[in-house]
């Protein structure tokens, strides 16, 4: 068994939480190597080398990998990846984009969104928006696994792995990067935040969403939104929590004006403590919440913010 983890690095910046949790899932099978391919690797590789259970950090520094385009990544790295029996990546937009393409090239089925590694060939993964959990056994020679990172904790930074530079030929004549439009924010990142405050359709407008953001900032929390709120234009799409958005599992999840549709619950029901505020006492969110308050959010949220 030889295990590789694909580090997620966006334009030189390591997605540390996601990568560390993918390492954590992979390390249930043994020591791992981590592939660090980007345009700038020095900071990223140093941080990866500290992750517990990492043996080698393979560094491939080239401008060509700045945006991790699927073709650049998979075509170029195929030989390296092919020498491992297990390849893990976080189930982020990076992992979901790249890993199945590698699968297509190797004629190997990808095992997406793994929530539990049971053995070297057996895994658990949610299906039907988390309404069922399937145990699957892979017969492929290489196991390609994307990790549902909310099910794992980051590994401690107590390791000291070897950093090895590697080379390979660049190749991508198919796609060209044009631009990124990233949301910039001082708030913690949604998928790794300890506290998340989310708003739903009940918030009513983009302007009103400031109430949610105010409470979030007071708590040092990330801001989330239900699909209904995103579809109505109250919140940007990368705030969406749910089966088709981000899956989160913070210590505290505060759901405000969210009814609790099944696809939303799939994205947050693994949170440690769930608090719900909704004026409709019949709202399904109260069936999963540890603490509920039946009240008008426009009255309750500002008052909570003041009292904390």
């Amino acid at each position, binding site marked *: 068994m030889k295990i590789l983890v694909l580090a997620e690095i966006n334009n030189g910046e390591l997605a540390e939480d996601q990568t560390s949790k993918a390492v954590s899932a992979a390390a249930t099978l043994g020591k791992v190597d981590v592939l660090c391919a980007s345009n700038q690797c020095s900071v990223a590789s140093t941080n990866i080398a500290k992750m517990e259970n990492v043996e080698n950090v393979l560094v491939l520094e080239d401008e060509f990998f700045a945006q991790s385009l699927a073709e650049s990544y998979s075509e170029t790295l195929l030989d390296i990846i092919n020498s491992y029996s297990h390849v893990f990546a976080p189930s982020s937009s990076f992992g979901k984009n790249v890993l199945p*393409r590698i699968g297509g090239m190797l004629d190997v089925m990808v095992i997406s969104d793994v929530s539990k590694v049971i053995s070297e060939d057996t895994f658990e993964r949610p299906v*039907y928006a988390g309404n069922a959990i399937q145990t699957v056994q892979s017969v492929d020679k290489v196991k390609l696994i994307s990790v549902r990172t909310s099910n794992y904790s980051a590994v401690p930074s107590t390791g000291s792995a070897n950093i090895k530079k590697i080379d390979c030929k660049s190749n991508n004549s198919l796609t060209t990067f*044009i631009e990124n439009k990233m949301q910039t924010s001082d708030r913690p990142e949604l998928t790794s935040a300890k506290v998340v405050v989310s708003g739903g359709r009940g918030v009513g407008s983009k302007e009103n969403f400031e109430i949610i953001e105010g409470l979030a900032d007071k708590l040092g929390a990330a801001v989330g939104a239900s699909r209904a709120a995103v579809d109505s234009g109250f919140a940007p799409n990368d705030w969406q929590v749910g089966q088709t958005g981000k899956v989160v599992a913070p210590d505290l999840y505060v759901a405000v004006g969210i009814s609790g549709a099944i696809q939303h619950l799939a994205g947050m029901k693994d949170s440690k403590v769930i608090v719900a505020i909704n004026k409709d006492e019949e709202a399904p969110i109260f069936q999963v919440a540890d603490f509920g308050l039946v009240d008008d959010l426009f009255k309750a949220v500002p008052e909570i913010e003041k009292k904390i």
Partner: protein
Amino acid sequence: MKILVPVKRVLDYNVKARVKADGSGIDLANVKMSMNPFDEIALEEAIRIKEKGNAEEIIAVSIGVQQNQETLRTALAMGADRAILVVATDDVHNDIEPLTVANILAAIALKEGPSLILCGKQAIDNDFNATAQMLSAKLKWSQATFASEIDVKKDIVRVTREVDGGLQTIEAKIPAVVSVDLRLNEPRYASLPNIMKAKRKPLEEISPADLGVEITQRLKVIKTKEPDSREAGLILENIDQLVEKIQENVGG
């Protein structure tokens, strides 16, 4: 140019999936089945590209049981020009894996020569999010996933992708495989006259063997279970109690 759109028949979006008591899977007997919502968005986009004069023909493909015919009739009623049904199993519970689906679609693509294949980013049953990427790898075509905006130009397609943290725009050489995300468009409903017209549109039925593709299963499903459920908690009486609970759990 031609556009190929694969459409999957899945348990309807509004129906709750029930795990079979023997743990063998989800019960799909006598439940409402519909077109995978992401595939509907892909088909809608293909129709809009054609309406703008940038495509001549839309071919819808479905892989699965005989009853997938209904899904293809819906696709034809929405605006696809013709349909191909690949009958790959006679049991609705037998989900064809994305890798096999990609092999079948690649064989069809080589025969039909589309410039663009528009896929839903994932099926809402198995949630793999893999077919488009695998298909694009099999064909060695360019890949653009999670599209929230698609602009077809002469030799390239410009795609804005929904990625963690924001949006990324790339240009992909045609032929390309594009997978679509939720916010790309809102699919239309088929009108009654179009539903009637769809009955006369061509629907070809073939088998995987006709395409030289073998159905394999690389992931054996050992068991399917209900997720751990949470119990409903406490309804608090006032804001002060809630503030207390929030403070107890922040940084805890």
